[in-house]
C-alpha cells in the first residue's frame, strides 16, 4: 500500500535562502509520526508545503500515492488531509459549535449550497455535536471561539482539524504554550482523535513526542537526518549533535 505521505527531494527557497534542502520523508499509513528539530530547521515550512499553503520550489509531494504538488490547500484538504496551526487559527466570531459545523460541511457534500438550512442538516449537526463532545467543549457550545480560554482554543483548533474526517491529520505544535496539566489533557485528546488515522505532528515537548509517536523524524537545516523509532532516535549521535552541538562520542 502507498504511504500516507511521501516527500521526495523537496526544496523550498525564500529569495536567496534555501530553507528546505532536498527533504525526503515517508509517513506510513496509520502511524503516529512526530517531527522534531531545532528552531529554524524548517518544520513549519515543511507543514506548509505538504498542506499547500506554500508551493515547493522543486520536488514531489504525494498523499496516499497521489501527486499533490502544487495543489491549492482546499484541493489537498478534499483529498483527505487536514492540518492544524501553531498559532491558533479558528473563526473567532463564530461560536464553538459553528466552527465545528463549518469544518464538516464540505466533507458531507454540502459545498456552497444556499438553498438549504444548516440547522436542518442532520448529519452535519450530529457530526459537529460528536466532535464537540470529543474535544470536551460541550459546555462552551455557544461561546464565540475568540473569547475561549487558551487551552480550549487549542482543543477547538484540533476539533476543527479532525471534524471533516480526513484520514491524514497534521498537528503543528498542538501543546505549544500550555501548562503541564493542559498538556496532559491535550495528549489524551490527540491520542483519541488520531485513532485509526495517520498523524503527523511537529512538537517540542519531548514528553509528548515520546509518549505519542510510533516513529520520529529529525529535521535539521532543511533535511531529515534521521527517521526511526523513538528508542533509536534517542540513541542517535547525529541527533544529539544537532540538539546540543556536541561532538558525538566516538
Amino acid at each position, binding site marked *: 500500500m502507498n504511504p500516507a505521505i511521501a516527500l521526495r527531494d523537496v526544496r523550498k527557497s525564500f529569495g536567496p535562502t534555501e530553507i528546505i534542502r532536498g527533504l525526503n520523508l515517508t509517513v506510513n499509513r496509520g502511524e503516529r509520526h512526530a517531527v522534531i528539530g531545532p*528552531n529554524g530547521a524548517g518544520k513549519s515550512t515543511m507543514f506548509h508545503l505538504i498542506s499547500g499553503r506554500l508551493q515547493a520550489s522543486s520536488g514531489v509531494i504525494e498523499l496516499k500515492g497521489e501527486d499533490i504538488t502544487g495543489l491549492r490547500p482546499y484541493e489537498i484538504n478534499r483529498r483527505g488531509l487536514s492540518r492544524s496551526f501553531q498559532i491558533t487559527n479558528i473563526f473567532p466570531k463564530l461560536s464553538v459549535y459553528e466552527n465545528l459545523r463549518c469544518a464538516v460541511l464540505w466533507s458531507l457534500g454540502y459545498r456552497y449550497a444556499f438553498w438549504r438550512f444548516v440547522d436542518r442538516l442532520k448529519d452535519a449537526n450530529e457530526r459537529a455535536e460528536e466532535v464537540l463532545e470529543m474535544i470536551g467543549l460541550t459546555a462552551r457550545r455557544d461561546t464565540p471561539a475568540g473569547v475561549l480560554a487558551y487551552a480550549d482554543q487549542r482543543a477547538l483548533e484540533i476539533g476543527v482539524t479532525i471534524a471533516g474526517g480526513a484520514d491524514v491529520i497534521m498537528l503543528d505544535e498542538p501543546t505549544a504554550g500550555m501548562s503541564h496539566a493542559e498538556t496532559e489533557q491535550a495528549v489524551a485528546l490527540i491520542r483519541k482523535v488520531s485513532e485509526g488515522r495517520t498523524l503527523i505532528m511537529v512538537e517540542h515537548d*519531548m514528553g509528548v513526542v515520546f509518549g505519542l509517536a510510533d516513529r520520529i523524524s529529525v529535521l535539521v537545516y532543511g533535511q531529515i537526518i534521521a527517521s526511526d523509532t523513538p528508542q533509536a532516535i534517542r540513541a542517535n549521535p547525529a541527533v544529539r549533535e544537532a540538539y546540543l552541538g*556536541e561532538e558525538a562520542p566516538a
Partner: protein
Amino acid sequence: MSALLDVQDLHAYYGKSHILHGVNFHINAGEIVSLLGRNGVGRSTTIKAIMGDVPPVGVVRFAGRDIAGMKPHQIARLGLGYVPENRDVFPSLTVRQNLLLGQKSARQAGRWSMQDMFRIFPRLEERADTPAGVMSGGEQQMLTICRTLMGDPDLVMIDEPTEGLAPMMVELVGNLLAEIASRGVAILLVEQKLTIALKISHRLYVMGHGRIVFEGSVADFNANASVRQEWLEV
C-alpha cells in the same frame, strides 16, 4: 552591588497563551550569562518581554530603572541591545547603511566604530556596499550583531546566534562574543546548543515550562547531569 539587569517574577502572554510563569534572573555589568533550554520553553519570549516587544508583567529593572511598560525604542536608548533570532537585516539597504542604523543618532560616539566592525569582520567591509539581503545566513548574523553593537549597548541580548551556521561561522561568532565581553559589555546569550555557551559563559540559567529550572556556573552545570537530561537533551 546591584545587578545591571534584574528580572523578578516576570510573566508574559502571547495572546491568551501564558508563556512565562514567573521568571527570575539577573545579570551583572560585564558578565556573560547564557539562557539555555529547549524550543518553546519561553527563552525568546523572555528577551522580547524585557525589550517591551511582548507586554511584560512583573519587575524588569535595568541600570536601576524600572523599564517594564516602556516602549522598545526607549528601552534600547537606555543601553539595552537586542539581536533577534530571525536576523532581521534590512534587506534592501547596504551593509554600511544597516550598520549606520544601529547608531541611535548621527553624532553618537561609543565603544564601537564602523572601523572596529570591519576589522573584526573583514567580510563586512568587502561587502559594505552590497544589499544586506543577498548575503549568506552567517554574514547576516554577523551584521545583526554588529549593527546592535553600533548602538553602544551596555548589555546585548542575543537570540540563538549560531542557529543554522557552519562550524567555522560558529567559531567566528564565539570570537566576537569574547571581544564584546572584553570591552565591558554584558551579554545574555540565548541558546539551545551548548557549544559556545559552555565555553564563554560566567553563569548559566536553564529554562523549562516558562520558568528558570537551574541556575549556576558552568562547573555546577557539568556536575549536574540530570539537568541536562531532563531539560535539554532529546
